[in-house]
């Protein structure tokens, strides 16, 4: 069929220029995944029919690592000679976005190669600080041919995305040799949660114009400690497979100034209670972060606090989902009073923060506004967690006989 023919031609072009691309087409990977055992075990096995590349679709999607992309001009010229028409989508380099005063390079984010009725979508992945791969959004510029391909049907490019560096496997499917992610099903799962948010560098710069950054040694020191604590926490939780996101002041710091707020005294993370694991406490202790206090219980208002280097502490708040909102709880140790912090529902996106790929609520503005009110842009140095948040609600008192369980201080 045309599809298989075009893919074959493209793979030929790729190998003649030794450009190591890999298949990330969700449709084909879905089909491949069903037969993955068989495909893995017969690396050269002849397949009688065109089972994968002939599936009905308009595109086939491949990924390319920027690092391995060398001779673009020659490559595109050969592509033209082979009859491909191509479109290249460039945009500014997000790795330099945080630096207001640098300019120079736009980088290629997407290529589309069209031959007859089929098109190849080549997504360029970039390595970024935090040991992950990033691909950019696909945005057409004024002069571009909007009808080149049905752009809306592309599987990549609606949003930027963040991925782990995949392990690759060379397989032979439909008589074509092609690299695929070693574990297609986990790649497909990753793909559905890959949306990436860039930090709002421009707004952060405007913020620092208004409120110059604290460059004191104390601030530098705190930031260093907070960063290393966050790195350690991420390592520990990722190892356990516990999904977490930046919450409270840490989230505000990311959203408002793309950095740790120097006068905050801790690092705050959020975790859905459904992701809670009993191993969390021992894992942190093993990582050198002893438990400082535990408030609440799994069924209600759970909150863990770990002691980091010096006085920096790590707070993990557990979030409870209701029909129309999400909340987490707080407890005052001396009185047993309970508090409840309400948030509108949110989903999770990836972002980069202090050289780490981490989650933040995609609907960050609503999240931050719920927590800090409409004046979240104004730095506040005195903060009372029981009264300052605009989403705090009084939530009764723990029964005295439960205190030993729900108020544990070390």
């Amino acid at each position, binding site marked *: 069929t045309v599809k298989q023919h075009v893919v074959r031609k493209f793979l030929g072009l790729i190998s003649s220029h030794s450009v190591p691309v890999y298949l990330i087409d969700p449709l084909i990977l879905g089909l491949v995944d069903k037969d993955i055992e068989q495909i893995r075990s017969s690396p050269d096995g002849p397949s009688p029919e065109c089972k994968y590349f002939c599936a009905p679709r308009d595109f086939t999607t491949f990924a390319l690592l920027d690092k391995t992309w060398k001779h673009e001009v020659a490559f595109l010229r050969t592509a033209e000679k082979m009859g491909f028409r191509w479109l290249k989508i460039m945009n500014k380099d997000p790795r330099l976005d945080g630096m*207001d005063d640098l300019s120079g390079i736009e980088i290629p984010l997407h290529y589309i190669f069209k031959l007859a009725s089929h098109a190849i979508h080549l997504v360029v992945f970039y390595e970024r600080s935090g040991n992950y791969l990033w691909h950019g959004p696909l945005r057409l510029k004024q002069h571009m041919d*909007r009808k080149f391909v049905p752009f809306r049907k592309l599987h990549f*490019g609606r949003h930027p995305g963040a991925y782990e560096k995949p392990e690759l496997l060379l397989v032979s499917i439909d008589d074509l040799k092609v690299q695929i992610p070693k574990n297609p099903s986990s790649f497909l799962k990753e793909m559905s949660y890959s949306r990436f948010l860039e930090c709002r560098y421009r707004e952060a710069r405007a913020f620092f114009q208004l409120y110059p950054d604290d460059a004191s040694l104390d601030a530098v020191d705190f930031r260093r400690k907070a960063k290393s604590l966050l790195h350690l926490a991420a390592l520990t939780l990722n190892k356990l497979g516990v999904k977490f996101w930046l919450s409270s002041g840490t989230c505000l710091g990311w959203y408002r100034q793309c950095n740790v707020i120097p006068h905050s005294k801790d690092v705050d993370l959020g975790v859905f209670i459904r992701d809670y694991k009993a191993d969390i406490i021992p894992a942190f202790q093993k990582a050198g972060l002893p438990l400082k206090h535990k408030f609440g219980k799994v069924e209600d208002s759970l909150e863990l606090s770990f002691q980091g280097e010096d006085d920096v502490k790590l707070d993990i708040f557990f979030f409870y989902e209701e029909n129309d909102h999400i909340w987490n709880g707080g407890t005052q140790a001396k009185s047993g009073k309970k508090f409840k912090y309400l948030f509108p529902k949110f989903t999770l996106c990836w972002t980069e923060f202090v050289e780490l790929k981490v989650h933040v609520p995609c609907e960050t503005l609503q999240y931050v506004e719920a927590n800090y009110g409409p004046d979240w842009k104004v730095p506040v140095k005195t903060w009372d967690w029981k009264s300052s948040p605009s989403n705090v609600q009084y939530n009764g008192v723990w029964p005295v006989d439960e205190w030993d369980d729900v108020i544990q201080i070390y």
Partner: protein
Amino acid sequence: MDEWKPNPAVKPHKKRSWYLAWKYKLMNQRALRKLCQTGAVLFLLVTVIVNIKLILDTRRAAYEEEEESAQDYDDEMLNVEVPRHPVNNKKVLDVEVYSSRSKVYVAVDGTTVLEDEAREQGRGIHVIVLNQATGHVMAKRVFDTYSPHEDEAMVLFLNMVARGRILIFTIKDEGSFHLKDTAKNVLKSLGSQVAPFLSWRDMWTFVGKKGGEVYGEKHAKSPALSTWGDPVLLKTEVHLTSVEDAECHWPDTELNRRRKRFCSKVEGYGSVCSCKDPTPIEFNPDPLKDNKVFDVPVAVIAGNRPNYLYRMLRSLLSAQGVNPQMITVFIDGYYEEPMDVVELFGLSGIQHTPISIKNARVSQHYKASLTATFNLFPDAKFAVVLEEDLDISVDFFSFLSQSIHLLEEDESLYCISAWNDQGYEHTAEDPSLLYRVETMPGLGWVLRKSLYKDELEPKWPTPEKLWDWDMWMRMPEQRKGRECIIPDISRSYHFGIVGLNMNGYFHEAYFKKHKFNTIPNVQLKNVESLRKDAYETEIHRLLGEAEVLDHSKNPCEDSFVPDTEGKVYVMFIKMEQEADFTTWTQLAKCLHIWDLDVRGNHKGLWRLFRKKNHFLVVGVPASPYSSKKPSSVTPIYMEPPAKEEGVAAVPAVAAAEQT
């Protein structure tokens, strides 16, 4: 998926609310009446506008017709009547050149391409090179030929300009005092009749084609020593040639396309733009076996010295083991020509908006460049930092490849540097030898990412602090007692003589005689002995083996060191405490090595070569190696000179700085 637009420019919500508001207004009677009124007025207005437009259009059509018929009938007339040089088919350029004591300017077709009336700068001969086909400015230089050697630089430059280019000369203030005959002859060969007789405070302008016709020359003689010649203004016309005539016909390859783009834009790079035998722009040096620095990013810090950058990148790309993909050139400012140079070599370049002034500007540029480097290469553990005025040794990467593991493993190290502050022609000998030093030489060095990210970046001096980045890095708060590894013979060579803290005299005194390794693939010896503890063992071994020199002799004299080769000698100087460098500074001065501040020391010990012998200097009693001094030997004390002499010895105020 369906609501997604690749370019989300439309905001549907707004539209809807506008519609609702409109509907609501309609229901209101008063609003309806008002709307009718507004509508009537609008209609009237539109009618008027349409009518006016109609009238205008008719007139214009008539005018155009007239012109067209004129064209048809009289071609000659056309050339005179309409603007003489239609933009898209320019044949003749108007050139205006002005020369005077306090101001020079050059205008090409009414556009000022040079204007300098600043006080106390821009003295000498200004040269502008135009493309003979397009009229674009390809190079702009000023040679202060009032001062020595600048005429040689001008000759060099003029020789590099391709035949056929248009050259424009004008003098500001004074341009003849050190304009030697060689230079005058070159100007004469370009067709100048005045150049051979140019003298003190004459004003002069000249426009000519290299290897071709002269378009004009004007000269005003200075009537007396104390006065200047009258200002001269030369107005002339230059006939442009076709683009084909102005270009070379190199084979059509990707490399030559880069070359063509470069050569049609800028001038003064010599054989790279030669039609017959262009010098290569791709070098393909031998790869290094087991190259440990192949994936280390290289940041080239540049300003607006494109010729320096050109020379620097040539040497860098010729070094064995270079990986062009890892190189990024950071240009401080939106200068075009340095970017052209970067693109000529197919490298990537990033421009940086200048922040702050002078040294602080350099410092902010460094910070931005280093941050960007680690952002662009997030996997990198190190970055190589180079500057645009360095030559890079052929074994630069080999040197780093053999030593980089030390920087990774030994936490007492601050950097690896390719530069030995004390490595002069007469004091450096062994290309395979490395030292540990307590100073941070810079000039081609390796920075550990963790050092930058965890320590330096967060507290880097802010723009309002007018600090030198390297001085700041040398401060104890930053260095924290850590050391750098350097080679005995430098792997970089500092050729820049025009710089922020640099001038010709200073360069000649402190940099020109620096030794630079030219041997490929040098196998470094005892790399492992450079580790913290191993190095102490090594030093003790050396001192144990060293022969104590005769301390009754004058250490400045050649005879202080016997006429031997390959031996190890030691001398002891007075050094009361750790910061007492009185005697060392005097010794450094008489040995003609770096004496402007203390460099190259390790725990009160300096290592260099004299007459091909390893020569150790130990400061007693501050150095822990003082115990090696025989009790019979009295450490040599050298008195600092009287005050004013000390001042005279330092030529530039900020001279101790190397950027």
